[in-house]
C-alpha cells in the first residue's frame, strides 16, 4: 500500500502555483503603473533656457568668487565644441562655472560628495528627489537661485545615469536651464579645476 502523493509535495502544482503568482504580480503591477507613472528619460523640451552652449541668461546672478583664482591655462575657450545645449563637455561646464557662475549639482552618493566635490556644488541625488527627502534642498535652490539660473548636474561620467535622473525630475518642477556634464567628477578633478 502506498499513500497518495501529497499535493503540497508534488512539483507540478507548485510550478503552476508559481505561474499563478507571477500572473497576479503582473496584474497588480500593471494596475499600479497605471496609477503611479514613472519618468524614464528627461523631457528636454522643457529646458527652454539652455538651447545654446553656456548661454547667458538675462538677469542671472553671477557668483562673485567665480572668476577668482582661476589659472589662465585651465580656462576654457569662449566657445567650446562637443555639446548640444543639454549635454555638455568638460570645457563647456568649466566655462559655465567661470563665466556664469553656474550652480553645480552633485548627483553621486552622499559619501562620495562628502569626500570631495566641485567647489560650491550642492549634493542632490535622484533618490532624494523622488523620495521627497530633497524637498528642503529644492525649496532652497528655488529661493536662492530661481528657476532660470544655469545649473550643471554631474556624476561619474561615462555610463553614469545619476545626473540624467536628477535632470528628469527637476525639469517637470520648472527648472529650465539645466545641463548635464558628460564628463565625471574625476575628469574635473584631474583637469586641476576647483574641488573642495
Amino acid at each position, binding site marked *: 500500500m502506498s499513500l497518495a502523493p501529497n499535493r503540497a509535495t508534488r512539483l507540478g*502544482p*507548485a510550478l503552476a502555483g*508559481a505561474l499563478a503568482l507571477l500572473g*497576479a504580480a503582473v496584474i497588480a503591477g500593471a494596475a499600479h503603473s497605471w496609477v503611479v507613472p514613472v519618468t524614464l528619460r528627461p523631457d528636454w523640451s522643457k529646458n527652454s533656457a539652455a538651447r545654446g552652449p553656456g548661454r547667458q541668461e538675462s538677469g542671472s546672478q553671477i557668483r562673485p568668487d567665480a572668476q577668482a583664482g582661476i589659472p589662465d591655462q585651465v580656462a576654457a575657450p569662449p566657445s567650446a565644441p562637443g555639446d548640444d545645449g543639454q549635454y555638455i563637455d568638460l570645457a563647456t561646464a568649466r566655462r559655465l562655472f567661470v563665466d556664469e557662475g553656474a550652480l553645480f549639482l552633485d548627483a553621486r552618493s552622499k559619501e562620495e560628495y562628502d569626500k570631495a566635490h566641485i567647489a560650491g556644488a550642492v549634493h542632490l541625488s535622484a533618490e532624494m528627489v523622488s523620495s521627497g527627502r530633497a524637498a528642503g534642498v529644492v525649496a532652497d535652490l528655488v529661493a536662492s537661485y530661481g528657476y532660470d539660473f544655469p545649473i550643471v548636474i554631474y556624476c561619474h561620467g561615462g555610463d553614469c545615469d545619476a545626473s540624467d535622473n536628477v535632470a528628469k525630475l527637476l525639469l517637470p518642477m520648472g527648472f529650465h536651464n539645466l545641463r548635464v556634464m558628460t564628463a565625471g567628477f574625476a575628469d574635473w578633478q584631474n583637469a586641476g579645476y576647483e574641488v573642495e
Partner: protein
Amino acid sequence: MRAIETGLLLLVRVVLGVLFIFAAWMKLKNPQAFADSVLAFKIFGRADHLVVLTTFVVPWLEVICGALLVLGLWSRAAGIALGAQLLIFTGGIISVLVRKLDVTCGCFGEYEWPCTGAVSMCHVGRNAVLLLAAGLLAWRGGGVAGLDGLLWRRPSRGAIPEPSRS
C-alpha cells in the same frame, strides 16, 4: 531530526518572507528610484514598457510571495517564483559586472545591506544565499506552523481505507 528540519524550514520561510516584504516595500514606496535602477542595468534598451513592467511587477511579486511565505501558504510555489526572480536578478548583475557598468542595485531601496555601493560580487554572493533559501523551500516546502500544513495535511495511515482487492 525531523523536528530540526521542519523548524529550520519554518525559520527560513519566515525570514525570507519578511525580507522580501521589506524589499518590496522599499521599492513600492519609491517606484521612481527603482525604475532608475532598472534603467541603469541597460538591459531593455529603448523598450521603456519593459522597464515600467519590471519596475512594478518585481515588487508586487516580492510582496505576494513574501506574504505567502510568512503565512506558510503555497510555500513551494512562492519559493519557486522567488528563486526564478533571484536567478534573473543575478544574471542581470553578472551582466552589469561583465559590461563594467556603474550601477547601484536598488534591491532594498536606500538600505543596501550587506552590500553597499555599486553592484559587485558581494551582490552575487548575497543572491546566491537567498537563492539557496528559496530553493530549499521549493524543494522541501515550508515546514510547520503554516497554512500549507493545515490545507494539505497528510492523512494518518489509519484514516485511509484499504482498497478492496477483490
